[in-house]
């Protein structure tokens, strides 16, 4: 291992992923807002003919946010921090740089094809695995390219120890590879019969087995994209931005390995009171509760990193984003296990409460962490200070209020739904017809839509701030060690 004096890092690939983070974040959230208002005002289903009906748009929203926004954010962070924690630079490794570019452009091709095919109604209908089989193959190629980039970079590293962020990225890479392939095993019907659509395939698994393997995937897409990928990000950016060392190495170790062991077991909580075997449901329920420990381990490790430094909350909007992200992570990882308790699940499953749960995680934890990471990277990638701290502050508050409106309306809506479905009168007859439960939810759907809209407005402010930073902000002479420089 050599020791060079200073390294000039190459941010060209990280910048590309920063752009796609903004683009897909905007598109994914915009579609989300449209969907939210469609539930309150059904006429919005027809704004673009058959292509804008809820059932077609919803997979675009979920795929856009999971694979467009979140993965872009994770990869922007990887191509930025990977070089730094491994002490390499792509200037010295043209092969890794080429792989990075190929990774980005194939990924963009994939996402464009995904959007077109989902609009056309080409889907295999498994949630978060809707893409048709030829695109699944392209997903594998894109994923392998990330693997080559990651393990290739580690192969030429100058730093002996692999930093914590990369533990989590390795976990994301490996777990998603395994889960994605198994869940998407399917047989293209054209290849068997020689007639019909070439795009059509049927799952290798049927019925209850298919459901089990789907939720083993569906739950763990949350585990290894929304959780371990994002933890990887925050473990780098929170200490860097605050200038504080991570609170505890032992707690890090504990929460990493136990999260990796426990998370997969919890997939069974999606099929409680379904037709899969009881013991699977029980394991899913029990392990979901155990999951609080490693999740809170990480969150507490983040929050205690700020011990004695809470004044930074006042001084830096960036720290506010990161600390509130950890707090939302605690909220979401307490709420999830509560919903996985069998008696609560009996009420909550199939209701809006689940939608609320997903969104306090994604909007609060995932969105805020990625936004903060982008803000931290900006001054260092473009050698300019962040354009406006005031916009950051406004953005932070407007988004936070949006999230609160979102999850509180969905809590009320979901619990109302669940209670009304099960309600019986004194003779034991059902009190309500299904449509009664739809009617009462109208105000909550409007509030949710407004919450989502506020978050989207915050995101537009973010995009504006980023663009102005790149084009108009004051240039910096040298990189600051921590606390991103920002204008007033």
């Amino acid at each position, binding site marked *: 291992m050599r020791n060079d004096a200073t390294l000039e890092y190459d941010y060209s690939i990280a910048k590309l992923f920063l752009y796609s983070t903004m683009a897909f974040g905007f598109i994914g959230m915009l579609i989300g807002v449209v969907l939210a208002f469609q539930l*309150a005002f*059904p006429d919005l289903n027809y704004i673009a003919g*058959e292509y804008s*009906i*809820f*059932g*077609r748009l*919803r*997979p675009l929203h979920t795929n856009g946010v999971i694979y467009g926004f979140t993965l872009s954010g994770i990869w922007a962070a990887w191509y930025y921090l990977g070089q730094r924690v491994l002490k390499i630079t792509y200037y010295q490794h043209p092969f890794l740089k080429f792989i990075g570019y190929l990774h980005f452009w194939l990924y963009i091709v994939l996402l464009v094809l995904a959007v077109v095919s989902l609009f056309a109604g080409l*889907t*295999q*209908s498994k949630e978060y695995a809707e893409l048709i089989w030829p695109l699944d193959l392209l997903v594998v190629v894109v994923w392998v390219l990330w693997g080559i980039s990651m393990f290739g970079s580690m192969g030429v590293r100058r730093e002996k*120890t*692999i930093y914590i962020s990369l*533990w989590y990225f*390795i*976990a994301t890479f*490996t*777990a998603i590879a*395994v889960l994605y392939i198994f869940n998407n095993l399917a047989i293209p*019907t054209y290849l*068997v*019969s*020689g*007639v*019909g*659509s070439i795009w*059509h395939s*049927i*799952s*290798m*698994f*049927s*019925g*209850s*087995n*298919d*459901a*089990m393997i789907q939720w*083993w995937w569906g739950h763990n897409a949350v585990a290894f994209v929304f959780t371990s990928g994002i933890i990887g990000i925050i473990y780098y950016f929170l200490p860097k931005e605050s200038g504080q060392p991570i609170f505890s190495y032992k707690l890090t170790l504990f929460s990493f*390995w136990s999260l*990796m*062991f426990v998370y*997969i*077991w919890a*997939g*069974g909580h999606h099929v409680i009171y*379904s*037709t899969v075997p009881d013991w*699977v449901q029980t*394991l899913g329920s029990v*392990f979901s509760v155990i999951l609080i420990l490693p999740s809170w381990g990480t969150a507490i490790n983040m929050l205690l990193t700020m011990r004695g430094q809470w004044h930074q909350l006042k001084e830096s909007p960036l720290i506010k984003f990161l600390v509130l992200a950890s707090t939302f992570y605690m909220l979401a990882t307490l709420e999830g296990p509560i919903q996985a308790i069998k008696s609560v699940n009996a009420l909550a499953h*199939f209701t809006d409460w*689940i*939608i609320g749960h997903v969104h306090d995680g994604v909007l609060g934890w995932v969105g805020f962490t990625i936004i903060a990471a982008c803000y931290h990277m900006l001054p260092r990638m473009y050698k300019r200070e962040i354009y406006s701290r005031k916009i950051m502050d406004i953005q932070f508050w407007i988004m936070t209020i949006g999230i609160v409106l979102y999850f509180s309306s969905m809590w009320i809506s979901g619990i109302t739904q669940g209670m009304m479905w099960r309600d*019986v009168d004194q003779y034991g007859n*059902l009190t309500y017809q*299904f*449509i009664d439960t*739809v009617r009462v939810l109208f105000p909550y759907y409007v509030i949710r839509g407004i919450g989502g809209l506020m978050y989207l407005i915050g995101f537009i402010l973010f995009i504006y701030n980023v663009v102005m930073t790149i084009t108009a902000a004051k240039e910096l002479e040298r990189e600051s060690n921590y606390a991103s420089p920002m204008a007033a």
Partner: protein
Amino acid sequence: MFSWLEKNPFFFTVAFLVVFSIAGLVELLPDFIKSSRPIEGLRPYTVLETAGRQIYINEGCYNCHSQLIRPFQAETDRYGAYSLSGEYAYDRPFLWGSKRTGPDLHRVGDSRTTDWHENHMWEPTSVVPDSIMPAYHHLFKKDADFDTAYAEAYTQKVVFGVPYDTQGGVSLGNIEDAKKAYMQEAGEIVNNMKNQKIKDAFEKGEVKEIVALIAYLNSLGQSRMTK
């Protein structure tokens, strides 16, 4: 204790895989070895129903409607007998859904008629005032995809051994036989519909998507049990 792992990405990844795989092996393998068996008397989907099921999937109906009746009294009172694993043996993929914006559909064929579905898909609020379901006019214009549905049924039969062409069961045969059965079955649905354009199109040998979708919805329930 683990610090040597953090200096070796290869062994780190192996260690991760071991820790990560345990749950999958314990939870998934036992049930896969005992592959999902159909309940007695369950027949596979006809080609027309398969075409309808594909439309149900393409339009994303599963985003708002579940097909899983949970074992609670409120659910069985509202939707019918609770779902059994063996009822899904021919479902590839499963369509349980994860959110009920509308009611469960697992036994909707027992409670709704062709006529009702026709009105509901054309103008939901005409049969359910205050419904927030969108209208599906385009299903009344486009033709159902017979070829792909046949391909799916054929694949179910040859790859997965789904019992088509059994005594008293659903016959598939070659593509011409299947087309004949498909048209006959569609004819029965069309007879029960009011829309003149659908009837005219059928006279010309066209089966619209709505016809196939209704056939599928009607199959959800007792009509999939052979007597």
